[in-house]
């Protein structure tokens, strides 16, 4: 299936889902679904650098927060509508990824990981000290009163927006995966030295994939201030985003675009259910244990199991 067709299909599915689900009477579904979709985007984005290229990014929360705070900035400065915030947030996060990559991708992968962690801390402190976007006190972003497309509540709108963004992220991931770029990234993942020797422009590819990955993570964050009406640094930079963005591709499978989707939907839904049933400290424990279990016992995730099962059946 060519990229264009896949993109159209994905968009159609997203819009269909958005339309059909408008019929669900209770708002809780949309709230929970929004969160799951947020993780779909984060996981897919992380996997572009993590699964395809083999570089671990511990700063997912930072890029997510960049997207969120860019929206806040544009809201405060220009009372800009959501669309502007989304575009701006994605671009700024991408630029930040470019900066991080440029500084650290010449070194070993491990340094990139540490630098991404350091970046998260520095950025957090920067935001905390920046009063224009609320600083430590937090910023309020009021949901507009008129809702386009005649939707009943604001949550329906950002849920639909999130659906479209998730489809977009999946399209991008799949496009990269099936392209020459993707093959180059895979070569880097398998053996960077060999790839470099075979003529793969490793640095350029790595920087590009970092930029795309971080931009998408920022995109996931752009609707967040509107969802909550309130954003403050410690929850925007929450470690939960970092951990989940790593755990979900790991669990779903890091080799293809379907893995993060499966992992995010599964793990995200489980977390939402646990949140309203059992005490949520167990929620986090489950994520951690699943992460460790999958990484040690099932390194290729659920997609890996499916592949192995299919191979056995094919025999």
């Amino acid at each position, binding site marked *: 299936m060519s990229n264009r067709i896949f993109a159209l299909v994905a968009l159609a599915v997203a819009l269909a889902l958005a339309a059909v689900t408008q019929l669900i009477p209770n708002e809780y579904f949309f709230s929970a679904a929004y969160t799951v979709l947020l993780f779909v985007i984060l996981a897919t984005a992380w996997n572009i650098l993590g699964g395809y290229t083999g570089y671990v990014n511990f700063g997912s929360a930072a890029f997510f927060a960049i997207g969120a705070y860019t929206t806040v900035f544009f809201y405060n400065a220009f009372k800009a509508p959501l669309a502007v915030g989304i575009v701006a947030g994605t671009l700024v996060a991408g630029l930040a990824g470019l900066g991080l990559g440029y*500084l650290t991708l010449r070194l070993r992968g491990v340094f990139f990981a*540490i630098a991404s962690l350091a970046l998260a*801390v520095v950025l957090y402190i*920067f935001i905390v000290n920046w009063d224009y976007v609320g600083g430590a006190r937090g910023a309020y972003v009021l949901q507009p009163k008129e809702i386009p497309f005649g939707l009943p509540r604001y949550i329906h709108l950002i849920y639909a927006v999130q659906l479209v963004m998730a489809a977009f992220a999946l399209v991008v991931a799949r496009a990269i995966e099936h392209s020459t770029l993707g093959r180059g990234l895979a070569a880097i993942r398998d053996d960077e030295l060999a790839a470099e020797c075979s003529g793969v422009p490793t640095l350029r590819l790595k920087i590009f994939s970092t930029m795309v990955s971080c931009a998408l993570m920022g995109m996931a964050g752009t609707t967040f201030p509107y969802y909550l009406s309130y954003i403050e640094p410690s929850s925007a930079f929450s470690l939960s985003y970092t951990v989940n963005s790593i755990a979900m591709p790991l669990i779903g499978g890091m080799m293809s675009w379907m893995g993060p989707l499966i992992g995010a939907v599964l793990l995200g839904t489980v977390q939402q259910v646990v949140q309203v049933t059992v005490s949520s400290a167990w929620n986090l424990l489950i994520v*951690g*244990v699943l992460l460790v279990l999958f990484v040690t016992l099932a390194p290729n995730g659920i997609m890996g199991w499916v592949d192995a099962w299919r191979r056995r059946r094919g025999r």
Partner: protein
Amino acid sequence: MEVSWALLANAVIAGLLLGGFYAAMSVGISISFGMLDVVNIAHPAFIILGSYIAYIVNDRFGLDPIVVSVVVSPLFFVLGAVLYRVYYYCFERRGQESLRGLAFFFGILFITEVALVLIFGVDYRMVSSRYGDVTWRLGEVGFPMRLVVPFLVAMVMVIGLQLFLTRTFFGRAVLAVAQDQLALRLMGVNPVRVKELAFAISIATAGIAGAFLIVIQPVQPAIGREFIGLVFAVCVLGGMGSILGTLLGAFVLGLAESFTSTFFGPSWAPAVSFGLLLATLAFRPSGILGR
């Protein structure tokens, strides 16, 4: 603000004392990451674990936390050995250590934190030590014991480790494994055993550093994450694989934080530390004393 001699002196003293503590926290990473190439980002989790064990015993029996941690360190040693075994078996052997190993340790960090929350709750815990509130004063300069005692013990530990690595057989085996595993194997030493030993030592130091931490400040499960960056910053700054480098890096960081706190405002102190890290990574990744 008048910059008096006393203010400067106190900033320097505080910076050095803090640096000693940072060195104790980071020396384990210097070994596990610097020498063994194991990116153990769960290191702070073991520090916090050490803090809590010191807290429990101190709370129940009133024993000095640092003494407790030294006594308990064999437990951490064993824990480190087991952890390394799992890591080696699942990742290193298969050559997948970079991504999955990282994720593995991240998961361990997370699980430790959440488990501590489930058991102890999120309230801050403190220990009461006999020297906790004592301050020696030399004129206008103060030496708070709560920083001095951990500093002294930390120095003993770090220097002891350096001597161990350079003077003893096992120590030199560790240095050798960092340089060339194949050569070591050819010389009849099992590198896996050596790495296991070294990793176990690194976790043991984490346990002891935990006691320092809880003497210096209140502890709750989530603060481990805040130290990940700091610990790696110290190692990278100082140069990987060099204990003395770690010491130097720790002092630099401690002084940077202390000076920034005192003269520019405390809220920029962590940014300075990590800014230093990023700058080092960008311009001199091997650090000050790196190989």
